[in-house]
């Protein structure tokens, strides 16, 4: 009766092996590494770069112990910190000859030292939260009202142009809060204006109003349009933040949207919060300028320009393809006039293209400039920290009116989306404010790990000692089951790459302390059955069977509390909730199935069983 069928034993063994496998990476520790990623969005991480860095390393006599490449970075593992630092210097020097204008960020990082075959089966060490590894955490609130008013202001300018073009006289357009009010002399003009506006601006809701002798038209953004603007604003802000943080040389930054209007930024290892804040808050600008085609075509002038002596009134820039370009200093348009940039396709040739939308004032300027410069090139520049970069330099084919600009020709779809992203990334769509900041020093992080580990270890040992003294062999079985629980929990956390925080470690300890409850319940039941004079085999079976219902009930109530914390918790508490919930699930399996498998293995094969080693069973009246 106390025998598990083969499949149940197999499940236990397979679970234990998997648990061991996925826990393993945590024991290897970390090795120093150098991570290379691109700082400029125009420069991509390519296989060519990897080969180049490998050459650089061979040239300086350094040998990486491993290379890992993903689309955003290349990481080189080194045997010790000394080689790591040497390698960093060598790579830095070769890749960024001009430190003031770095194209790549070369950052020191730590990589898991686990063997490649473990990494190949996605067995990674647990992902440590900022409170354990040190770093900065920011929660940024995006000012959505700011995004809406910015849009309304540019819509107001659009309406002014529109009404003038259609020869409709109005008494002024003003933004009042989140609405635009347009005044008219009489109702007839207002009706005409309404027809025109609703035709050209589908995003606006229009309502009539009367104020004294004035006839007013009140325009407000439709809810769908507001939502779109807000989503666009937060996406653009995230993109911008990505580009800026790349420059900080952080190994594994986290930039995520949280809720409708917040962005979380986590920078592990960064200690200089002042610099981080400075970079997060900086604005970049977009400029459209004309290219000096004649000078750019002259090799002699270009050679001089490349050496830092461009002709007067021009700036020398390098295009994405690597060719030099002379751009006139006069700015035609700035990014403020750009309302949107999307990648798409040319409607006729079906070539990849980038569609720009300019506001009314921008459209007018653009129309004039393109009319006068057909056949010439214009350059779109991203200016950050006073340094410019050519995003794209298209040829003007014809006059472009209406504010809808399409850039196409010799572009792949990825290039088109890159350019669109860059154009949008120029500036923040809406102002942001830091609403939460957490900085943890690296020493405190290491300290927290040590304290959490010690608490768990000593608590575990105390429980183990007590269980073995009190329940003898069955106590040992319980302790082994508890160890299996810890194994499963760590394996799951590693597999899911859930963030482990200090409260998370506390949850591991607490979960273990609570999980022993199930085994105490079982052991007490077995004792009770023995006390009632049942045979040992029957007592084991009844003990496990009867305790099962209780174990399930009590774990579910604990799980309810865990899930509530998971839903409403944020930050470190979420880390607690994740571990707590996972721990409850693993504990049901380990305390019931694993311990039963062990008991069956010990006692199941003995047909005649006189007693169980479960400590002294006291019987009343004996």
């Amino acid at each position, binding site marked *: 009766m106390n025998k598990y069928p083969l499949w149940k034993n197999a499940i236990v063994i397979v679970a234990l092996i998997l648990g061991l496998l996925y826990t393993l990476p945590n024991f290897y520790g970390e090795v120093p590494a150098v991570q290379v990623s691109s700082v400029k969005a125009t420069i991509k991480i390519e296989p060519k770069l990897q080969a180049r860095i490998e050459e650089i390393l061979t040239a300086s006599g350094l040998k990486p112990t491993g290379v890992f490449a993903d689309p955003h970075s290349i990481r080189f593992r080194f045997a010790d910190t000394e080689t790591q630092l040497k390698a960093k210097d060598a790579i830095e020097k070769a890749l960024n000859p001009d430190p003031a204008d770095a194209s790549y960020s070369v950052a020191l990082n730590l990589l898991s030292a686990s063997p490649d075959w473990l990494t190949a089966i996605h067995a990674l060490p647990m992902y440590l939260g900022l409170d354990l590894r040190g770093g900065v955490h920011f929660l940024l*609130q995006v000012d959505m009202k700011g995004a809406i008013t910015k849009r309304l202001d540019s819509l107001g300018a659009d309406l002014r142009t529109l009404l003038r073009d259609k020869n409709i006289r109005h008494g002024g357009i003003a933004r009042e809060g989140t609405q635009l009010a347009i005044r008219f002399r009489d109702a007839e003009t207002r009706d005409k204006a309404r027809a025109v506006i609703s035709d050209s601006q589908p995003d606006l809701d229009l309502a009539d109003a009367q104020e004294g002798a004035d006839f007013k038209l009140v325009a407000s953004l439709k809810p769908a349009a507001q939502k779109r603007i807000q989503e666009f604003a937060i996406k653009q802000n995230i993109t911008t933040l990505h580009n800026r943080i790349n420059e900080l040389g952080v190994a594994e930054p986290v930039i995520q949207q949280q809720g409708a209007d917040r962005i979380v930024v986590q920078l592990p290892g960064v200690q200089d*919060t002042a610099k981080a*804040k400075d970079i997060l808050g900086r604005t970049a600008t977009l400029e459209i300028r004309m290219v000096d085609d004649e000078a750019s075509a002259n090799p002699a002038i270009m050679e001089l320009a490349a050496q830092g002596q461009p002709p007067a009134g021009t700036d020398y820039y390098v295009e994405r393809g690597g060719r030099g370009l002379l751009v006139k200093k006069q700015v035609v348009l700035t990014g403020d006039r750009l309302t949107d940039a999307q990648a798409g396709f040319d409607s006729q040739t079906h070539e990849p293209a980038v569609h720009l939308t300019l506001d009314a004032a921008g459209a007018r300027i653009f129309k004039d400039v393109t009319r006068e410069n057909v056949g010439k090139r214009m350059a779109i520049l991203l200016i950050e920290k006073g340094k410019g970069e050519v995003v794209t330099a298209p040829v003007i084919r014809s006059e472009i009116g209406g504010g809808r600009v399409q850039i196409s020709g010799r572009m792949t779809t990825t290039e088109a989306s890159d350019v669109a992203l860059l154009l949008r990334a120029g500036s923040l769509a809406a102002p942001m*404010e*830091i*609403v*939460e*900041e*957490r*900085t*943890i*020093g690296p020493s*405190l992080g290491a*300290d*927290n790990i040590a*304290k*959490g580990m*010690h*608490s*768990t270890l*000593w*608590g575990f040992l*105390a*429980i183990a000692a007590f269980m073995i003294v*009190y329940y003898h062999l069955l106590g040992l079985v319980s302790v082994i089951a508890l160890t299996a629980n810890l194994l499963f929990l760590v394996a799951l956390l590693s597999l899911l790459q859930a963030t482990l925080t*200090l*409260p998370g470690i*506390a949850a591991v*300890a*607490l979960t273990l*302390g*609570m999980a*022993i*409850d199930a085994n*105490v319940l079982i052991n*007490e039941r077995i*004792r009770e059955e023995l006390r009632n004079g049942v045979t040992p085999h029957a007592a084991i079976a009844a003990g496990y069977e009867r305790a099962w*219902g*209780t174990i399930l*009930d*009590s774990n*579910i*109530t*604990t799980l*309810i*509390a*865990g*899930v*509530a*914390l998971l839903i*409403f*918790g*944020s930050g*470190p*508490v979420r880390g*607690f909730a994740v571990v707590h919930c996972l721990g409850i699930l693993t504990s049901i399996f380990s305390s019931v199935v694993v311990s039963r498998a062990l008991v069956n293995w010990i006692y199941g094969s003995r047909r005649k069983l006189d007693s169980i080693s479960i*400590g*002294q069973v*006291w019987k*009343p009246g004996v």
Partner: protein
Amino acid sequence: MEFFRIKRDIPFMRHALVFNIISLITFVLAVFFLATKGLHLSIEFTGGTLVEVGYTQPPDLDQIRKRLEADGFTDSQVINFGSARDVLIRVPLKAGEETAKVSERVHASLQAVGGEPQIKRVEFVGPQVGKELAEDGAMALMLVVIGIVVYLAFRFEWRFAVSAIIANLHDVVIILGFFAFFQWEFSLPVLAAVLAVLGYSVNESVVVFDRVRETFKKQRGLTTPEVINHAITSTISRTIITHGSTQMMVTSMLIFGGPALHYFALALTIGILFGIYSSVLVASPLVMWLGVTREQFVKPKKEKPAGMTEDGACV
């Protein structure tokens, strides 16, 4: 080894009234302290800035306080944290101040005092976030209470559900009462501990109730108090051992966990100790007062049609 050698069922229910009165008094005291002293909420809930600084030599706290006051941080709090070399500075939110820059200004003030301060930790929480965290905490508590009541009502009976949740909420109030009385800092991890302990203590009630149900089903002729006495007596050994084991872990956290886990472990300790008492000695009398009887668990036998024979055969 066996700790509990109990020959006869202990007549817990004879003293039910006494237990309930003790509970009521502690409960009222806890509410009193909560109302008069209030919780000492951490900056996570109130908003503000917290800076933890490490020194190589124990610094003069008074000097730091004076300097901070001179630099405009009038309501700031300066205390030692964990050791004499570690200092914790709390700066409350002030309207119209550039809040995100407070930590840098505090650092500047500390450097002016001297002693090579090393920033170990900075936490800044804006007013909106703090309010939301407090609201989320209250929502989480509500969700736990409703979830547990629904589950127990579904698994047992509404009487059990109500008694268990009253007994355990009374634990929660007592934990909060302790935090109010001693003015311990109530932070997010403490809230997590309170909720975890709520789920955990309900276990105790569940274990006892499970036995109550089983005893009702198995043994006839016992009165309700006798059934409850039997259920408590036969589970008391497990209750003490389980809580003892969990407490070993929590004590280990109190000793080795450092200041970051201190109040978390303290909340758990109070929760576990009161959990034993309340889930057994408060929940059970409540079930009794609410009028639990055998009939609620034993399905009534189908009545035989009139004139049916003893073997139940009919056509």
